[in-house]
């Protein structure tokens, strides 16, 4: 917010000159008939995406050469605003002379970038990105028709933000790795939600399967649960019985073998709980018994190991 947000309504000022030109004079407008496709030895593909009731709809025509699988001819028709018409026109251009598989890699951002006047200034304002730039979906639709499969099988990843093509796993990962707590942070890290904003929360222009608010909430809940589990596993949060068992196991695994290798040993005589502070009473055996360092260096070493491996609150005393 700030100075740039105080005067609204400059939607058309944010369209590039290329967008305006393509709206006024689309290069690839029209239909391709079965006969026209046949005449050049190509298979006709006609794909629809969007709906009038949503405010934007596009129909994409491809003539695909069946040997090379290349899109040799393309055109479009569109119900939509200026950006929808301009971006559909550019999308067709980007498909031409590509194979169907190559065309499937074209994203909405690719189309938008091709419409820019200068490389670092977006061709359309953010809220136009999804609703009007529909390349990705209609191309997938055309490809699925060409391949005789359904579109869903080509949607290999769960996309959360169609505009920026951000997947569900990416969003979850950035939340976890960077410990994010707000949707704004997710947008900063991934660009998800920066364009049409439909994926931020329900009630936007488009109904979505995933919304950033829900993903954030769920991921935070998962993280909290995991944290709880980690906390629960902390020595300090265990019952006295569990603590005693852990201490015995720690001694058997970590302490006793070291002393045994020098011909000594150590036994736990008792464990007392003094208001949460454990008094661990031990007795040396074998070579340790009466050893000069047993009440100094060795004791400090054992206590250090116990603090490191279990908890700082455990006091070791020789009885």
């Amino acid at each position: 917010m700030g100075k740039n947000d105080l005067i609204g309504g400059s939607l058309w000022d944010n369209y590039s000159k290329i967008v305006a030109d393509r709206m006024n004079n689309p290069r690839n407008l029209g239909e391709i008939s079965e006969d026209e496709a046949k005449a050049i030895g190509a298979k006709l593909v006609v794909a629809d995406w969007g709906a009038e009731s949503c405010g934007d709809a596009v129909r994409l025509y491809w003539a695909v050469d069946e040997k090379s699988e290349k899109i040799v001819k393309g055109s479009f028709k569109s119900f939509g605003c200026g950006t929808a018409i301009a971006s559909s026109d550019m999308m067709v251009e980007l498909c031409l002379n590509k194979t169907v598989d190559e065309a499937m890699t074209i994203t909405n951002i690719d189309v938008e970038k091709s419409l820019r006047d200068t490389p670092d200034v977006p061709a359309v304002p953010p809220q136009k990105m999804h609703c009007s730039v529909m390349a990705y979906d209609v191309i997938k639709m055309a490809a699925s028709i060409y391949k005789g499969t359904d579109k869903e099988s080509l949607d290999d990843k769960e996309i959360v933000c169609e505009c920026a093509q951000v997947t569900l796993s990416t969003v979850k990962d950035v939340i976890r790795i960077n410990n994010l707590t707000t949707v704004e942070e997710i947008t900063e890290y991934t660009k998800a939600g920066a364009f049409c904003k439909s994926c931020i929360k329900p009630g936007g222009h488009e109904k979505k399967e995933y919304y950033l608010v829900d993903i954030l909430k769920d991921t935070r809940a998962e993280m909290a649960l995991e944290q709880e589990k980690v906390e629960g596993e902390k020595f300090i949060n265990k019952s006295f019985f569990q603590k005693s068992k852990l201490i015995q196991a720690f001694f058997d695994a970590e302490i006793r073998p070291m002393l045994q290798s020098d011909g000594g040993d150590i036994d736990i005589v008792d464990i007392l709980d003094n208001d949460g502070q454990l008094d661990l009473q031990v007795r040396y055996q074998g070579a340790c018994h009466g050893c000069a360092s047993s009440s100094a260096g060795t004791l400090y070493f054992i206590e250090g190991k116990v603090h490191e491996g279990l908890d700082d609150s455990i006091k070791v005393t020789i009885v």
Partner: protein
Amino acid sequence: MSKIYLDNNATTKVDPMVMEKMKPYFIEKYGNPNSLHGFGTETHPAMSEALNSLYMGINASDDSDIIVNSCATEGNNTVLKGIYFDLIHTGIKKHIITSQIEHPAISHTCNFLETLGVDVTYLPVDDDGVVTAEILKEHIRKDETAIVSIMWANSETGLMNPIKELAAVAHENGALFHTDAVQVVGKIKVDVQDADVDFLTFSAHKFHGPKGVGGLYIKEGLKLTPLFHGGEQMGRKRAGTINVAFMVGMGCAMDLAVKALDFENKEVRRLRDKLEDAIIKLDDTIVIGKREMRTPNTILVSFKGIEGEAFLWDLNWNGIAASTGSACSSEDLEADATFQAMHVDADLSHTGVRFSLSRFTTEAEIDKAIEIVEKTVERLRAISSTY
């Protein structure tokens, strides 16, 4: 290319006579009307004259108030929030009624009041697109409803609501009645005593006055907690140094608008009808709302298969300014609330284009507009995938 302005429901040009009338109050008679010295007092005659024009313009009695403020948004906020403080916050009443087709100055204020715990009912419209007395009767609650606020005419469609009947229903049920009249002042005769409204709001820039000045009518005997606290201006009902020049401008604009009512209803209506007749001659076009139920200057039309913003784009490239309330034009990308409230087919909800004329619109402009509309329909339907 000459430009043609057909977006007069959004704002209007200042009448040159209004401009002339305002001029002295910027660099000659610039005193503060509240000052005791001559600079202050020399502004008073023009302010009185302006008030006379405003009172005459809406037939307000001398004992009622017309508070000069900044715009109708301020007036609407003053009424709804004042009622909240006076009748709802105090526990006397708890309910507000408005409609689904109001301007955001009403609907967003009501949304806000809901967050404070006010019970708000948003009335639907009938098949003609108007709020009827019957609809209001179904929802009004005797002794609970504090105020009913229904716009006089809708800005998108121009459709006029039966304000006199609605006010009567409100009063029968012990509620106050407010109407946002921005779209009717200067278009039809507005008589606050005949309609028997308690509050009425208007804005000068909708009738060839300057932007940034409006009026709030308060019926005699009614009290309303002010929105602005501060100095003693406007009878302590609206603090803030009075914008003398704009007040003078609004008075003059009201005067001219009232004098032009006959012209508005004959000549502007004739040109509007000419444009409308030419549009409905085209295939698959629908004009929303019956002609006789609309303000004389407005047409909301749906061109099947053409998205509204695309239509405006082509018009703009040809020098014509019109408007759309449908998706893609607005930042929030929501289908036009008016279309939705009127249950217009969802496929058409993004196709609305509004033309609104004024007394400055010429026959030559309408002829040119007809030509460009025809050209635009042809071009964009050739592009359309749904037509």
